[in-house]
């Protein structure tokens, strides 16, 4: 039965990893705005197409992931 000990140990490590990931996501502000990213993801495609067509030297699309601190 000692394999149970290993399994439990592995399970708790994995679960903890998810918990830490969740806490990181919350701290990072990913739950602050749950609407705008869903709209933003549709734009990026459109914009890239436009830039290709017109071949302009404009600065590229801003990176949509908010920078951890500073915001809020």
């Amino acid at each position, binding site marked *: 039965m000692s394999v149970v000990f290993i399994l439990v140990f592995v399970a708790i490590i994995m679960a903890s990893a998810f918990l830490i990931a969740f806490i990181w996501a919350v701290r990072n502000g990913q739950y602050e*705005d749950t609407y705008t990213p869903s709209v933003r993801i549709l734009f990026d495609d459109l914009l890239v197409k436009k830039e290709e067509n017109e071949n302009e030297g404009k600065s590229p699309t801003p990176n949509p992931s908010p920078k951890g601190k500073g915001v809020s």
Partner: protein
Amino acid sequence: MSEELKCIHCGNSCGKSPVLFDGNPFCCSGCSTVYQILNTNQLKQYYQIEQMPGVRIEDEKQPVDETYAFLDLENFKSKILNFSEGGISKVSFFIPEIHCASCIWLLENLHSLNKGIIQSFVNFPKKEINITFNESEITLRQLVALLVSIHYIPEINQHSIEKRSTDQSDKKLFIKIGIAAFSFMNAMIYHFPQYLPGHEFLETDIKRMFGWLSVLLAVPVLTYSANDYFLTAYKSIKKGIISIDLPIALGLITLFTQSLIEIISERGIGYIDSLTGLVFFMLIGRWYQGKTYQALSFERDYKTYFPLAVTRMTETSTVTIPLEELKAGDRILVRNQEIIPADSILKSGTASIDYSFVTGESMPVAKKEGDFVFAGGRQMGSAIELSIEKEVQQSYLTQLWNQTENPSKADYKLNTIVNRVSQYFTVVVVLIAVGSGIYWSLNQPELALFSFTSVLIIACPCALALTVPFTFGSTMRQFGRKGFYLKNTAVIEHLDKVDTVVFDKTGTLTNAQSSEIRFVGKKLNSVQLQRIKSLVFHSSHPLSKTIYNSIEGDELFEVKDFQEIPALGITGLIHGLRINLGSRYFVSGEKKEDESLTTEVWVYLEDSVAGYFQLENEYRSGLHEVIRKLDKTYELHLLTGDNDAEKANLIHYFGTGKNLHFDQSPTDKLNYIRKLQKEGRKVLMIGDGLNDAGALNESYVGIVIADNVFNFSPACDAILQAKQFASLDKFIHFTRKSIKIVNTGFLISFLYNLVGLTFAVQGNLTPIVAAILMPISSVSVVVFASFSVSLSAKFSRF
């Protein structure tokens, strides 16, 4: 009228003479200017993502550039900027106009408009934009001017300075929930094998490991996730009040110690799964109830309405000073669209002051040199010079605000149903626990302690504590979906207790946006009407526009010698005949200033005074129904600052003139509410402008009616979208249903408690009973509450 052309920028009707650019029709030059800016910067996609996404701000309503001069000053800049280093700065603005996907797209592509902007992010629910920019290429002031030029006017006021470091509580709650969920899931896994038949064959080592792991999991839940419950329980004991948190804290502690004892003595596995589950469910309830409308503000005071800085005039020049430094006797310059910060006297210029935020009256008031001007109005038109009479703090409006410190709103939290119920609940539970403890100590002493703790464990009012958050939380969501926004869930309970309703008139019962116009006097023929229309076409005064739109026909005649005499009227020659339009004094020469409450535009044409246009505010549609229905259950009152010219009309609505009060100053309104409440009434005040702020604050519940809920509104408990006014009675009545649902929820959780207690007092409460009963009771209460609210909301049809 043939086809109606719609402005491709904002979707408003273009009227009879659209502004054309690039083959596209626009309603005004303001809209077409924005189009041109976007067009030259290859941002035309703005118009493809959504149809007619723009915001209409007519040229004359656009704030002038100097308004933002204060943003160049170092001490303001440092307060407004979130972050600044090495020329790179970050700033966030609240922009009420953000409303659609196109807005997001455009605002996030600001870098195409100006190279100095590094990146910009929109937070749509908050209607906020975060901009990172390079200060060597674009200053803060230029940045704001850029936003203004594309009709996204950021709100910069005291509020935007002080609003730092909020919203941390939300994050904390999420983390607490996450930890509780983690512990709950894992504890269930450790407990589950021991609920199965044959668990007695499990190795002791494994049992021991599961036990200690559970305890380990419970520690962060107890010390971090549930710490609020212990804290509030402790606080309320210190105040001598029994709140719902007390039995919860008691239950949690007992659960934990009982489990610890069982695990140490290796008699069993304990109740850790129930404990963590409980905390998890209760936190979910707290989160559900705590939903707030991020973009709405219910706490605004005059500071958030007034500007941050004013322009003071010295002998030779002008300087921008912070509002706090403004002193009586100062001379200040107020430009187009700026707000008059303090009571003052008009020194030069012609003032046309929009008091719609104050009184709800949409037509601007004209003032002459030497007139006294109250603070709070917005200047429309050219710049004016004012001499400050009273400091900001001493002005009439601000004083009104300062004198209402409402004590009845401070004890909001303590009076809620759940706390009243829990007072009895706690006492009864403790009595039962002690009783069964005594009973068993006489009969079977080894069961005494166990039955005592079992009662405390099973009676933990989790289901009870969940009923209110879920019922009220769902009610609030249902209301929000229909345009009735509550500050918090306590407002629902308060609305239910209301027995008196007090209305304001202008802007509340009447529609501030549209007014009825009719002509009083000689009958005018169509040519005469066309002449009037041709004349007003040349004026940008709001009254002229209203008259212009009210007259049908397209033919415009040539106007010669057109003159606009500020604060008086307009004049011109059409077909060689002079036409004058304007104030009674201007047109007829009669000096009599009768303070008529309706707005009148007198007409002089063909050598005589023909009569006048009368503008009356329209009553909101559905008013009759709302009043009739509310009248059945509530005592209705009306307070208005206007005179009694409308009395007959109002009696028609209210049935009797008994509770109608006219000529009420803001202080009168406040005192009237105070008087009613002294008589023991629970008053619901329904108002709109700053002049109702005192009354709204003083009343038991204050509702503000707003055409645009994101615009400024005085501090209140709830904001009702103006177009939902007809449903007002349904909203109020629905709160009764919510209370009924809460009571039924209580009944259900009591029944569960009864079942649990029968186990507990017999000393039969095993971990498995707790593990089944406690989640089931919580979940069923949650399901019941949310379902019955949405079901009855469907039947109410508000």
